[in-house]
């Protein structure tokens, strides 16, 4: 018998070697108690959270919590059904209305996760004979959506407008074209030149899908994302987003002005063949989305946090993923996986949690310590974080 697991042997060996060195397992951390959006207890130690995507700190918002508790009382713990059968409650419709209001768009469709939103929309919309032109650094959910569909998949170099245009020009006459971009690329925290890219895509007759998972609630005058910030949201055909970041719960969505959009509810398999989100999740999401519309002060504070951390880490001699703070993600580049894991552990002992990211999730084989800031981090916490990085960086020999 061939052991189907033998293909994982190299990874098993890499993990074994890493953990044999005595380093704490970076992919097995347990949050024992969560005190606030920015502090939790891990391994009995109070830890500042700097790797959570909880950008707007909504997870402990009193109105959000109250809405969830009320929904549990009123509607029960779950829907036990698909959106197209018994799984659409008043809360699902209210949540879709909140999204339409938030983005100023005609249609909104809520999925059970952000991953499923990309998987479903992309695989359903781009079919046999169509062409998907996408950035090579696209998120796994986008790639999986491409793989699940039957379209021809054509990647181009990250954020390279010329490379994208060359590929658009070569698509056979008459074929359907979908260009897929992200507002913020989550590994390095860099943003896309959406305005120019979308103009080029439109010039070549392509429809445009933009994943704004890491910008919602934070980037743009109304928190609608990078496309809003660059003044090109009206040219985006489909915006994909998530509730598991700024919104502070779980779920995914697509908003659009396409007149035939609603038909997707019947033909999109990751929407149809799964249970809908629990009512409590819909009510927490709805309350959070509506509060994010009025989050200008929090947005300003989050930007200040992001810029301060970026400047502080750069001044201490760390190598960062972007020349300046472009989003709420600051990626610190590690020389290799071994020292990245050592640095991750040293930070944890200091009382700081960040994300350790490594290939294949990262571009160009990099090992990264990814920091994501929260609007609820105080200015003092950010200074404390910079001090922790300095001590850990010196201990591990990175700076």
């Amino acid at each position, binding site marked *: 018998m061939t052991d189907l697991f033998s293909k994982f042997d190299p990874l098993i060996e890499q993990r074994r070697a890493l953990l044999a060195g005595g380093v704490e397992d970076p992919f097995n951390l347990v949050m024992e108690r969560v005190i606030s959006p920015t502090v939790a207890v891990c391994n009995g130690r109070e830890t500042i959270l700097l790797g959570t995507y909880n950008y707007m700190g909504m997870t402990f918002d009193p109105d959000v919590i109250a809405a969830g508790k009320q929904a549990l009382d009123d509607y029960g713990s779950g829907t036990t059904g698909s959106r197209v059968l018994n799984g659409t409650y008043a809360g699902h419709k209210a949540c879709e209305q909140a999204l339409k209001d938030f983005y100023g768009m005609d249609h909104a469709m809520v999925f059970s996760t952000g991953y499923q939103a990309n998987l479903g929309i992309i695989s359903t919309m781009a079919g046999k004979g169509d*062409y998907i032109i996408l950035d*090579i650094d696209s998120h796994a959910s986008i790639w999986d959506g*491409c793989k699940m569909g039957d379209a*021809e*998949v*054509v*990647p*181009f*170099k990250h954020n390279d407008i010329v*490379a994208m245009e*060359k*590929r658009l020009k*070569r*698509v056979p006459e008459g074929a359907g074209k979908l260009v897929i971009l992200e507002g913020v690329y989550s590994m390095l925290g860099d943003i896309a030149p959406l305005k120019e890219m979308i103009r080029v895509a439109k010039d070549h007759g392509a429809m445009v899908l933009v994943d704004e998972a890491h910008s919602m609630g934070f980037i743009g005058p109304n928190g609608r994302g990078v496309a809003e910030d660059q003044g090109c949201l009206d040219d985006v055909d489909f915006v994909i987003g998530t509730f598991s970041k700024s919104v502070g719960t779980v779920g995914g969505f697509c908003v659009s002005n396409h007149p035939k959009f609603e038909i997707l509810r019947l033909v999109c398999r990751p929407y149809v063949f799964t249970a809908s989100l629990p009512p409590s999740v819909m009510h927490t999401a709805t309350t959070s989305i509506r509060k994010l519309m009025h989050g200008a002060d929090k947005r300003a504070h989050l930007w200040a946090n992001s810029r301060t951390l970026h400047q502080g880490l750069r001044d201490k001699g760390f190598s960062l993923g972007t020349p300046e703070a472009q989003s709420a993600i600051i990626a610190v580049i590690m020389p290799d996986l071994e020292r990245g894991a050592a640095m991750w552990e040293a930070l944890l002992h200091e009382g700081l949690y960040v994300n350790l990211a490594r290939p*294949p999730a990262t*571009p*160009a*084989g990099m090992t990264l310590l990814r920091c994501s800031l929260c609007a609820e981090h105080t200015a003092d916490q950010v200074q404390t974080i910079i001090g922790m990085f300095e001590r850990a960086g010196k201990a591990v020999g990175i700076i």
Partner: protein
Amino acid sequence: MDRAATAEKIADLIGPFNKKGIEVTDATTFAGDLEWDSLTVMDFVAAIEDEFDIIISMNQQAEIENYGQLIDAVTKLQG
């Protein structure tokens, strides 16, 4: 362009990517023999696409494992 002429052009293009100077025959595989990672593959594919003004989609790339298959595919894609 016929297969021979196509092969000649691809031989020129592969030079800068063949950093270990491995002798390339039709049977040489990209992942196994040349040990290319996904980024190197993308840059090499982009160089070929630009030279011949074609698209080699990911779907087509999945069918191309060795050098000979690449030359066949590019010859065919030029129509």
